[in-house]
């Protein structure tokens, strides 16, 4: 096994006078004086957020503007700090083309004071209905304001351009009579 010993040489006289250090320190200072700045004037300037960033969790709709969540409550179960509260309900009657989906959340709250942005909800969701967005600063004056309800979650989430249409495929299979499940 390769072991290296930390070397300890006694300081030379010049080093003990501290003068060479002052000179080399000034040299370094000068070098950095003309180097580009590395700080950022937040909030005027904002850092670029990479793809796959784990920001505020939101609900998303499919490209036809339909709700994707089927209120299976898996995200509610997995959320380690228990930030999600869901009341399951049925698909609204005014959406007949989704009647075969059967379930949709009646209420869906995410408490941003509890959320730790872990991303487990997105990871387990079988519908890709809950997605962590690029948003990273949430503010509010009261605790109540920090709870995102269903309406707010869809506002923040918007539409996800995926093309799964899982339930439409299932409906087509049902109508064709080869639905196994």
């Amino acid at each position, binding site marked *: *096994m*390769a*072991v*290296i*010993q*930390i070397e*300890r040489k006694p*300081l030379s006289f010049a*080093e*003990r006078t*501290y003068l060479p*250090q002052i000179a*080399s*320190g000034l040299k*370094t200072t000068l070098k950095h004086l003309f180097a580009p700045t*590395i700080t950022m004037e937040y909030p005027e300037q904002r850092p670029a*957020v*990479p*793809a*796959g*960033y*784990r920001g505020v969790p939101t609900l998303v709709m499919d490209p036809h503007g339909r709700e994707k969540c089927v209120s*299976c409550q*898996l995200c509610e*179960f*997995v959320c*380690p700090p228990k930030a999600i509260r869901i009341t399951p309900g049925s698909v609204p009657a005014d959406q007949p083309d989704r009647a075969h989906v059967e379930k949709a959340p009646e209420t869906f709250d995410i408490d941003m004071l509890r959320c*730790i*942005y*872990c*991303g*487990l909800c997105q*990871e*387990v969701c*079988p*519908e*890709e209905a809950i997605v*962590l967005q690029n948003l990273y600063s949430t503010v509010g004056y009261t605790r109540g304001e920090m709870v995102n309800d269903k309406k707010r979650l869809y506002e923040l989430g918007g539409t996800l351009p995926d093309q*799964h249409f*899982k339930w439409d495929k299932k409906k087509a299979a049902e109508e064709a009579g080869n639905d*196994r*499940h």
Partner: protein
Amino acid sequence: MATEFAFPDSAAKNAAAAESQNETMSLSMGPSHPSTHGVLRLQLEVDGEVITKADPVLGYLHRGDEKIAENMTYNQFVPYTDRLDYLAPLANNVAYALAVEKLAGIEVPARCAGIRVIVSELARISSHLMGLGAYGIDVGAWTVFLYTFTEREKLYTLFEELTGARFTTSYTRIGGVARDLPNGWTDRVLAFCDQFLPILEEILALLHRNKIFLDRTADVGVISKEDAIAYGLTGPNLRGSGVALDLRKDKPYSGYEQYDFDVPVGTKGDCYDRYACRGEEMRQSVRIVRQAIAKLPGGEVVARDARRIVAPSKDKVLTSMEELINNFMITTEGPQIRPGEAYFEAENPKGILGFYVVSKGGGVPWRMKIRSPSFCNLSILPKLCQGEYIADVVSILGSFDFVMGECDR
């Protein structure tokens, strides 16, 4: 020379006289003191400037992590491991996953192991950068901190890209990692390494031949080899005392045996040796990262064949009923780990982080014990501080580079 004060009555005069003869005074250092690196409180007994007794008081950051672990599935606990040594969350994630995998008896694919080595070493660099920078401040060298923070920021950008978060990475899962490397990420890591080495030299040059720094660190807080072993010190604090124990060499995991690197050890065991070990370890970490990237194989990043432990991939969940059910089972019941117990320890930046996991079967640990390096390292403080000056306590604490998040857990 004692100054004579006019005392209003003789009782007060007697009391004052008794006080001046009373040798010691007690002094609370912390829990909110800039040099105690978090919420450590030192109950000191001082005789003038000299410490006669030091009692570390812990627990201000206690969250009951071990108990929390008993109430959730193995994967749900991963975010909690971020919050142990929060200066190197990736290394904690890796150590935890390896512990549970040891109990489950599963092997992760070579690519996953390689990625884990890369992220652990990057975490080591970022932790040591923070340690060095904070140490600089403790002993009066502000500049170092600004330099190291700049470098650490670059690493955090890389972590953010990889895991989706800068700080709370939650990157591993039982049986793998949460995501594969993004395109071009390894190139950016290599680019970071290339520019980092000269800057590291510049950072170390600010300190290691600096007379003021040497006066504050050399021959201060000397820990003998025997004491270091007796008190169970690990990590750079142990190696600074000349004991070449490094689990990456002595009990290799995650394929560390494939990589070529050296273990720095000190000769005296003083604050300077501990600091210098960290500096050298960063150089060695860069070496490991480069080799690990060069050797990184392709393939899966999760152990797909462990069907009762690893959740199926998202495209399968979306298209297949069986996989959907499996996803539900693994999420709600947890990864199915066989009954038994396992202890696994990893060489983390701060020392040896161990997880002792007891399972009675199912997806939730029955008991989990976390051996945190900071906690064990601090155990020597009462002995070490005795007879030192108050100002040197700051220097000694800084040289330990502990984190209360994992100490109190």
